[in-house]
């Protein structure tokens, strides 16, 4: 469960933001999980709930977690593709490596059109916080 470390990062961020915004209570956190990181949403929610349970500031927060499609764009031929198209062909070992460090997608996958490893991860890389809501 290395995901725990990322869930803790989300909670840390929420607490930091709420201090800045002077929230008495955090009511809602919206999170996007990029496809490249291949994190199971239910697992992540479970871990998050466990961690926020220890903080009264945030323990009642509604968690909204959504998947974000992995979109890649080739710097050579400008082709755009979805991570789904390439993940299926990957061995478990390689897809696990991408799970830990999404950038190794440049090592184990290629532009489906021209074969280049030189592409941008446009969206859907990893865990992002969209919004944090609270009451003052």
């Amino acid at each position, binding site marked *: *469960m*290395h995901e*725990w*470390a*990322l869930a*803790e*990062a*989300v909670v*840390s*961020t929420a607490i*930091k*933001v709420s201090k800045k915004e002077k929230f008495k209570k955090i009511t809602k956190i919206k999170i996007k999980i990029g496809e490249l990181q291949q994190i199971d949403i239910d697992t992540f929610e479970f871990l998050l709930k466990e961690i926020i349970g220890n903080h009264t500031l945030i323990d009642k927060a509604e968690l909204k977690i959504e998947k974000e499609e992995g979109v890649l764009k080739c710097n050579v031929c400008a082709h755009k593709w979805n991570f789904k198209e390439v993940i299926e062909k990957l061995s478990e070992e390689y897809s696990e*490596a991408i799970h*830990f*460090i*999404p*950038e*190794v997608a*440049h*090592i*184990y996958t290629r532009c489906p059109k021209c074969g280049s*490893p*030189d592409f*941008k*991860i446009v969206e859907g*890389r*990893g*865990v*992002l*916080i*969209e919004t*944090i809501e609270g009451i003052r």
Partner: protein
Amino acid sequence: MDPRLNIIDKRLENIKRLIAVGGGKGGIGKSLTASALALTLSKLGYKVGLLDLDFCSPSAHIILGVKGIYPKEEKGIIPPEIYGIRFMSIIYYAEDNPSPLRGIDISNAIIELLAITQWGELDFLIVDMPPGIGDSILDTIRLMKRVEFLIITTQSKVVLETVKKVLKILRELKVPIIGVIENMRLAKSSFVKEELKEFNVPFLSAIDFDKSLEDSLGDINKLSKTDFVRHIEKLVDKIK
């Protein structure tokens, strides 16, 4: 918002000292120094971590002969221990494949590693830097806020020109500089000392060029007996 940036301080909070081994140029002995330093400190009984941030030419695992180990997953990733050193490197995920990573990817991978690695308590985290004054060094300075630099140089004009640039920028940004090691010395000369005088940084050691060093790479017993490691053992008092 990138949540990872807000957990890195916590991941590093139980590390007493963060020492990056740099110099801006490649091929000057940064990886050898970082590896030898980690090894020496570990032998002295300190709790030591070694982080190889050179994603294109990771070398510490070759120098130390690391093979067949892999991090454990537990509330993050736990670096496996080798010779008492908690060792973290891109090789666990990249193996020996080419890593065609642009700067943005290097930066993201560094942030990820720092956010998910559970170092635990350490006396020293030694960071083996890649060449360049790019994403890796900028992120090291930005994210490892207490980092100190140990600078390697050689007598070469082209190396010194770059080392001066690194010293200049570290000085400007008020990043602590532990000192300079002159490596691969071919002849006794005060050239390096004089060229770096203006920076007023401790000159820690001068290590001779050692033809037989290469042969000891990957073999910890041979490595421990080299002049190189002996020099590092001697100067470690000035660091710890």
